[in-house]
């Protein structure tokens, strides 16, 4: 505790994001030999392992052997840093836009390995609903076939999220990807959905994709 705090009640400095790091152990400090992003990633992995296991987070088989890239430390670090920065919120459209641009770039560069790195933030609920929703929106609008099956898989898994905002974003993403193969997953989500408005939205998306069959 600092000298100023010891004289009175503890206080908080609003907006001082750097304070998030003050109580972290040595390995997270800037003096540590381990890069900060890698340390954070290890912690994230450890924290998410249980929830991933309970959700059965098994990554699907790659479409081709060349697409299954290992998750390199560098890529992990980039993804973690991107989500950490976004976790402070999108106060301006520009922030959301930059997040989407960087995310798109990572998927274009690293393909399936990038989705592999992103998945724990969405399915393991390490990202807040707003960021997860922006991620699903961005992934659904990527042009071409880059990691297509993996992106659809992520949307389908996100339909099971505890957050109605994320479930909605997943349904919108599947609609945007225009893939009738997603209908069984949407039907399952519709059967389980407790939010009346979202049930209505899911029904509309389902009808739309069924007409495409």
């Amino acid at each position, binding site marked *: 505790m600092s000298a100023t705090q010891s004289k009175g009640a503890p206080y908080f400095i609003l907006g001082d994001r750097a304070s998030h790091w003050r109580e972290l152990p040595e390995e997270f400090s800037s003096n540590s030999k381990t890069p900060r992003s890698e340390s954070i990633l290890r912690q994230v992995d450890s924290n998410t392992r249980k929830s991933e296991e309970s959700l059965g987070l098994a990554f699907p088989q790659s479409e081709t052997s060349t697409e299954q890239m290992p998750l390199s430390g560098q890529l992990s670090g980039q993804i973690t840093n991107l989500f950490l920065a976004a976790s402070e919120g999108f*106060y301006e459209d520009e922030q959301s836009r930059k997040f*989407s641009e960087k995310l798109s770039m990572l998927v274009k560069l690293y393909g399936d390995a990038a989705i592999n790195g992103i998945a724990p933030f969405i399915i393991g609920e390490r990202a807040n609903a707003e960021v997860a929703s922006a991620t699903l929106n961005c992934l659904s609008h990527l042009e071409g076939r880059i990691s297509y099956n993996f992106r659809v898989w992520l949307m389908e898994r996100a339909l099971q999220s505890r957050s109605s905002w994320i479930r*909605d974003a997943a349904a*919108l993403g599947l609609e945007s990807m225009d893939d009738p193969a997603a209908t069984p997953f949407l039907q399952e989500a519709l059967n389980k959905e407790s939010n009346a408005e979202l049930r209505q939205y899911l029904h509309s998306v389902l009808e739309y994709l069924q007409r495409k069959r």
Partner: protein
Amino acid sequence: MPSFLIKVTWGKWQTDEPWLPPGELPANALFDLRFPSNKLSVWSIEDGNTNLDRVIAALAVNKGKTSIDNVDYVLLEQMTIEELGIKMEKSRGATPDVSANDEWHFDLIELTVSKIVSIARCIKELEIFRKREPQVKDLIRIGLIGNHFDLNLVDEKLRARIQGLQ
């Protein structure tokens, strides 16, 4: 009496978070009500919703947008705004639909914290309407046919997507 359209994000207004006390709204919802200079941008929707689709299309291609997305919105009756003691003034919108900007854009002005919270409380009780992405694409197609948009004001990426709709 006309109503005012406010664009929202459905997820921000959900009250099913386990930590949220009954009757409360998540603070995040206030980010849907951006109020630079204590003003909130709204769109006047005529009786019978005759201009609703055009306003939605204008918002769908608005500055800063790079993809075609669903549009979620609420319609707040003018009477409700007046009952809250909120002043409004006609102002020019900033979407690529120049005619819509001139005809239907208003600002709710001189907003205070309590007035913003009052608006949020009203929205909480309203139905959130949605135009889904395929519907928005249809509205944009209509806008293109009617030459409603100044495409120079549309983001380059979105412009490419829009041109792909034709």
